[in-house]
């Protein structure tokens, strides 16, 4: 009984993803006929009172790769936007993965009197809705003169406090005597960090990398506010525009958009789940 309920819940949770993937192998014409509101010669048999309702399916009548071909070869904007997304995401990930572990380590090990107060400020920043954080981001971008460029998105995201928080959650369970031991051996501070501490954070770093990737790949709001030039828009914004229009292209473009995220997940899911677990048990 428990098994059946669990399987059912699992299927429901995966339904939107299964739907998008299976329908991406449909020809543009079929998708159009199935999901449009208009009555066409091909879908009139199933229309009601002169109106056509969506014919949801998980199995295309004709399986074809045309959708993918169309997006990748005919739509030149698509590939450029894809590349834009890559160029925004990679620097943020690199920055996060360099800066957050050092900060987390400092927060956990330091004996500074006011560190918990500073940490509380980090948590408050972390909990602020993105839209409101864009106000300070906008002021700095304006002041330093890089507004309307990708840097307005990339720079603040590199320093977002979530990474520090996630890694510190995990570090609290870390055996600090190891650090002492390495120090007694005469290792330099940086050596201790890179050789002793960092390897122990591997799983949570992978979790952070995956979560940061997903978040940046998915960027919408910041791009809408900061990027005026349509040629510089990331794919996520572009995709939100095609979703409004032509059903024939939606599925394949959405699926190509998903591929990097799914790849990251498949490659890192074990680390990711392990990393998230490690951050669960601490008193914040």
């Amino acid at each position, binding site marked *: 009984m428990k098994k059946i309920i669990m399987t059912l819940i699992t299927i429901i949770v995966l339904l939107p993803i299964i739907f998008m993937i299976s329908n991406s192998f449909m020809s543009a014409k079929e998708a159009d006929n199935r999901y449009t509101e208009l009555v066409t010669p091909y879908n009139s048999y199933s229309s009601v009172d002169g109106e056509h309702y969506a014919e949801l399916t998980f199995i295309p009548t004709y399986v074809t790769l045309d959708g993918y071909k169309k997006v990748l070869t005919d739509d030149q904007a698509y590939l450029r936007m894809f590349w834009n997304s890559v160029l925004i995401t990679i620097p943020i990930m690199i920055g996060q993965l360099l800066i957050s572990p050092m900060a987390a380590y400092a927060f956990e090990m330091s004996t500074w009197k006011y560190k918990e107060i500073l940490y509380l400020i980090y948590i408050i920043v972390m909990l602020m809705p993105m839209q409101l954080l864009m106000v*300070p981001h906008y002021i700095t971008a304006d002041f330093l003169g890089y507004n309307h460029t990708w840097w307005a998105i990339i720079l603040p995201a590199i320093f977002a406090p979530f990474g520090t928080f996630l890694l510190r959650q995990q570090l609290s369970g870390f055996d600090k005597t190891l650090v002492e031991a390495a120090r007694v051996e005469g290792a330099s501070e940086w050596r201790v960090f890179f050789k002793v501490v960092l390897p122990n954070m591997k799983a949570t770093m992978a979790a952070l990398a995956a979560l940061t990737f997903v978040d940046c790949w998915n960027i919408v709001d910041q791009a809408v506010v900061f990027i005026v030039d349509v040629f510089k828009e990331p794919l996520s914004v572009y995709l939100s525009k095609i979703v409004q229009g032509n059903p024939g292209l939606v599925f394949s473009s959405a699926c190509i958009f998903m591929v990097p995220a799914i790849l990251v997940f498949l490659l890192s899911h074990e680390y990711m789940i*392990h990393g998230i677990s490690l951050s669960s048990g601490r008193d914040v």
Partner: protein
Amino acid sequence: MKEKITYKKFLLPSLLGILIFYLLPYLASFYYAFTSAKTGAFVGLDNYTRILGSASFSIASHNTLLFMLICVPLNIIIPFMLAYAIHKEGKKSFIVLAFMLPLVIPSGATVYFWRVLFGNYGFINKILISNGLETVNFFQSQATLYIVTLVFLMKNIGFNMVLFISGLGYIPKEYYELAKVEGCSKWYIMRRITFVYIVPTAFMTLLMSVINSFKIFREIYLLFGNYPYTSVYMLQHYVNNLFSQAALQSLSALSTMISLIVAVVVIVLYIGQRKLAKDF
């Protein structure tokens, strides 16, 4: 002494970034909030009173709060129940993987599914009409709130579930065995052992749920656009509208107000959690 200096070195890059991109401009916005948009002159609390008096702000803040009050508890209770049901199977079961997947899927990629399902000419309306029932305009009704809740939960249950599974795993099994030997009831064991030891994990899931409840705006935006039905007109819509008017002064006033609220909530939770952890 040497120790202090070395840790500062590790914190410095992050701290500089937080200062430059978050805290210093935040202080600047604190100043902007007291100035006029047109002349730059000092106007006292005008920007604040204008926001507090605006109807769209009160709708937006009411909706955001209501949404959080619905979603955050559900996003803690449901993952806990699921985790409790399967935690003995461990973290590597297929169910955990399945629940984690929606978390990594970009919002834009699956929004279309919800349109096909709930749209005016969507699948559900098709079922209704072919059974002789009236169609429902889901996107222009209170239903929007429930759709968003559903989308939110499907996306975020996985993360909290993983947290709870590992949190449950940390509770020493001897406690349960001892309680069983003593003849305690199931509910008593749940209340006195499971709930007590799950508090730190629950606190973490609470923080994650709050963060993610703000992030769901992407889905709301992609589903309903800039001007959705009133029940899902969120604070973020209000902010976006201010941004499109380039109303930096009003934005600043809003941002300082919300940040103060967040700060108070975080500090209360922080103290509360410390106290709770001590009491047990």
